[in-house]
């Protein structure tokens, strides 16, 4: 597919809006439909499109597999870490209210961080699975 000019041009134009949309879904999930899960999938879809059109090597150069493995663990760490922090601040595990000065502020920060963790892990794992399958299928 690497020589298909139309696909290359169209996907180059599409990938930045897809990434922006993923960030919108990630950080606007409190107000509209969406959240970390969907944002992670959309963001990984942008890179999968890149890999399909420009080749696996270019995509692995853009985001190396080692980085993906670290990101996958980092997301889980952020989520579980928020729980540990609330424990140290005197609350129950994942009781976000103790994170801020008021209950609503704490909840807001907690939900934001937790959704970020979900998004990072989902993004990284989807790409790990795709890269692993695609790498295995190379001639």
């Amino acid at each position, binding site marked *: 597919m690497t020589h298909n000019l139309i696909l290359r041009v169209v996907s180059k134009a599409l990938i930045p809006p897809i990434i922006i949309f993923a960030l919108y*879904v990630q950080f606007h*999930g*409190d*107000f*509209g*439909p*969406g*959240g970390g*899960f*969907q944002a992670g*999938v*959309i963001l*990984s*879809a942008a890179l*999968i499109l890149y890999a*399909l059109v420009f080749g696996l090597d270019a995509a692995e150069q853009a985001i190396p*597999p080692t980085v993906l*493995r670290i990101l*996958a*663990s980092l*997301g*889980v760490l952020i*989520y*579980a870490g928020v*729980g540990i922090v609330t424990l140290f601040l005197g609350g129950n*595990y*994942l009781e*976000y209210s103790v994170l801020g000065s008021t*209950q*609503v*502020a704490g*909840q*807001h920060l*907690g*939900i934001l961080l*937790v*959704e970020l*963790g*979900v998004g990072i*892990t*989902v993004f*990284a*794992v*989807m790409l*790990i*699975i*795709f890269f*692993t*399958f*695609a*790498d*295995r*299928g190379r*001639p």
Partner: protein
Amino acid sequence: MIDVFINITLLAFLAITAVAIVRMTNLFAIIMLFGIFSFLSASLFVVMDAVDVAFTEAAVGAGISTVLMIATMVLIKTQDEKRPAGHKPWLPLAVVIVTGAALIYGTLDIPAFGDANAPAQKHVAPHYLEKSIAETGVPNVVTSVLASYRGFDTLGEVFVVFTAGIAVLILIGGRRPKSIPNNKGRDENDA
């Protein structure tokens, strides 16, 4: 009224797609039909006002799963499903019909869709709907339930996704077996 019409149309398309998937043998066409099936399900979720679920179904079911299934099809290097010779469909058909009849019988007793007096709406749902803004300040109740009230469940889900990634890496990731020829010089840089 229009909802009923849309529901019947979508469910009819869903059934047609399912029958087509069962009858086809070309894997590529089947994967495309799976994508269509997911999009139809997503449309049904939108009609039922579950936009968050519809969003996930469209992104995961129709998007990522389709790509991963095509990647798998490339791996197994075949496009046609081979039917085992002498396969008699009567026993599986009977099992499916009995199970389907039992499920339809089961639906006779469950509350109508959107029934405000259903047990599912009586337990903690009223608390979430009434107190979500005051307690979390998040207008989208789905997000506040998912990330705050049911934070433990979501943590578990993230671990499930993480475990899936690790499982794929362990099973088919990493170094290729030496017996496969034509991988000159690739083993050094993808360890």
